[in-house]
């Protein structure tokens, strides 16, 4: 027989009410800061934006983003978020370096070399959409719409944009990618 006492449903309801914050209302209790320390200096920033991290990690931390001169200066954990409670992981802290990296893909690129060579030329977005539109139309005529498939997973696990791609792919009639790793 089990030696562990079981809580009654009523005790559990009381416990949740006592120990867990209410639903549907903002849990923010501090006002957003206007300054921060950066390289041992106190810096007044243009704004602090409260958001969250969607990098396929179930902590989905609350984040404060310090913005100055249009750039992401620094990120910190949101102290009012009940899970990360002001903390961040090392990946989170690197984000200004990532977002402003000079190595980012800066504009649309069209392959000029062999596949795998990594040789490209710059396109405008207009040209890129034209290129893709022509190929999608040709693909549908030659093979049928299910010859198109989307490959998407959790690189940014955020859900909103996936629904918009889903709307496009439904309308187009593409094959649907499902399952999980």
């Amino acid at each position: 027989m089990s030696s562990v006492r079981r809580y009654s449903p009523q005790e559990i309801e009381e416990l949740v009410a006592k120990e867990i914050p209410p639903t549907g209302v903002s849990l923010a209790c501090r006002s957003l800061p206007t300054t921060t320390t950066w390289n041992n200096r106190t810096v007044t920033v243009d704004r602090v934006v409260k958001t969250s991290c969607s990098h396929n990690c179930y902590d989905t931390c609350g984040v404060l983003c310090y913005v100055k001169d249009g750039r992401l200066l620094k990120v910190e954990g949101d102290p009012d978020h009940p899970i990360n409670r002001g903390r961040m992981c090392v990946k989170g802290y690197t984000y200004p370096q990532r977002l402003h990296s000079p190595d980012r893909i800066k504009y649309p690129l069209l392959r000029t070399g062999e596949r795998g060579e990594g040789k490209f030329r710059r396109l405008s977005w207009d040209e890129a959409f034209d290129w893709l539109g022509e190929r999608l139309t040709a693909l549908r005529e030659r093979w049928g719409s299910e010859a198109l498939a989307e490959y998407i997973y959790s690189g940014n696990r955020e859900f909103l944009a996936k629904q918009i791609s889903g709307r496009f792919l439904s309308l187009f009639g593409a094959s649907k990618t499902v399952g999980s790793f």
Partner: protein
Amino acid sequence: MQAAEVWSRHTELVIMWGCNATGAGIHQDVCYLFEAMERGARLIVVDPIVTAIASKADVHLRPRPSTDAALALGMINHIVSLGLEDRDFIDRYTYGYEELQAEARKWTLERTEQVTGVPAALVAQVAEDYATHRSMIECGYGHQRYTNGHQAQQAIAALAAVCGHLGQPGAHCNYMEVGAGYAGLLNSGKVQNPAGAQIKKSRLINISLFGQAMREAVDPPIKGVIKWRGTMITQHQDARRVIEAVKKLDFLVSIDQFPYDDTDYSDLVLPACTMYEQWGVHPSYRHQYLQLQVPVVDPQYESMPDIDFWAELGRRMGYGEYFPKDYTGLDWLKELLPPDFPFEQAMHPNGPIRLPERFCHPIPNWDGKYNTPTGKIELHATAYDERAKRFPGEWDPVARYVPSAESAEGDPELARRYPLLLISQHPGTRTHDQFLNLPYIKEIEGPPKAMLHPDDAAARGIQEGDRIRIYNDRAESFVLAHVTRKVLPATMELDSGNWIREGGNVNQLIHQRVAGPRDVGHGVMEEYDFQLDGHTTPFFNLLVEVEKA
């Protein structure tokens, strides 16, 4: 998912099972866990590798990789043999207990030790402690990365059920539930299939077999792929064959932030925004709080928010009425979230909010209700019986141990040529292959290293820091050797996510196959059930040999 804020305050004992908490989810499974330990809770870690969290454990069980189901069944049998099971709970809330017990009875402590390598005395001690304390199990993905992963998870859940450690504050079995995002919070169907549009049902492609589907799908073949928010070449199994398939496409489009393996093979590469340059919503799959994502800075360079890309493509392809030009991310969010969602409360400068309990209760199953065909915890999964009538596969309804593919026990012939089983962890410095290229991360990580047991290293004349070649019939990877007892003999570890073009990639060594009960052939399906078909990818069913390079 029982909330960490709840279980950490009430539990007396935590088993972290296949969960390298120091690699991901650190705020719940490290910070809250440590608070529980400071209160006096004991920590048991089940992991073949001495992870950082294992080094903090009171007891560390190190089963041979992929034998977790045997370990759980051995614990169940020992608990029942001592009469420590929760009879009342079993009678009221479970279905199929007799069948489970018949299976568990085969797992004496001696046999459990023989198969798992965990000493019988330790199995017995942990089983007794687990049964007699208010106990949590926190499951990671580790034990699920094998072809028998679903059976392991079923056996672990059965262990919790037999002891009645479910639905109580501080006593539950948490696993990777999909969370509020799929529990009705998001109205995905409405956004994806807009009212009034003619939408025909399309075939489905199983992502675990995407490479194979690209090679083998017919009527029609896959000829065009738009790839975004995911890594097809670096992160897929058997990368060489994925590359072969990509070369046969009419076109591959990549929407990415950095150039790497995938963009090298793409025909069109488009600059993607990061998560701080666009709107978004990400309900956690392990907690109950939500902070909406708002754009923090303008899109950098010529990068485009993902929503804008798909909407513009839709307009150009003639679906303008479904992609209004003036729609912002917030407008789309209002279509996706429930009509009564408190936007102002959950969005900058406010938030986060706790989500309504109908989407994620902090103590799931507290009311003894289970969402199964019988309304009980199904130790015999009746839904599997139904599935078995319609689809081929291994629909064994009761947890049991089946040796996994490509392991010493599952494929002795292959193991003679490639005797080392290679596990790949997710390092805390990366999200799979992301962040690897950042100077901060490179400085912390240094060059890629693989862990190798001293006995295996000595037998091959390999010393700490040597450059080694890890290989099998599929590929080879070159890294530095880290000779350490953190891995078991005949086992190696190489972190996932190293780019092929930089060296040290592990996934190219892995056979392309799925885990989970259903056999889905080459990956093209008409119907798929996310929960029941249960596909993951057996990334750890990987045999290799190693030599000094």
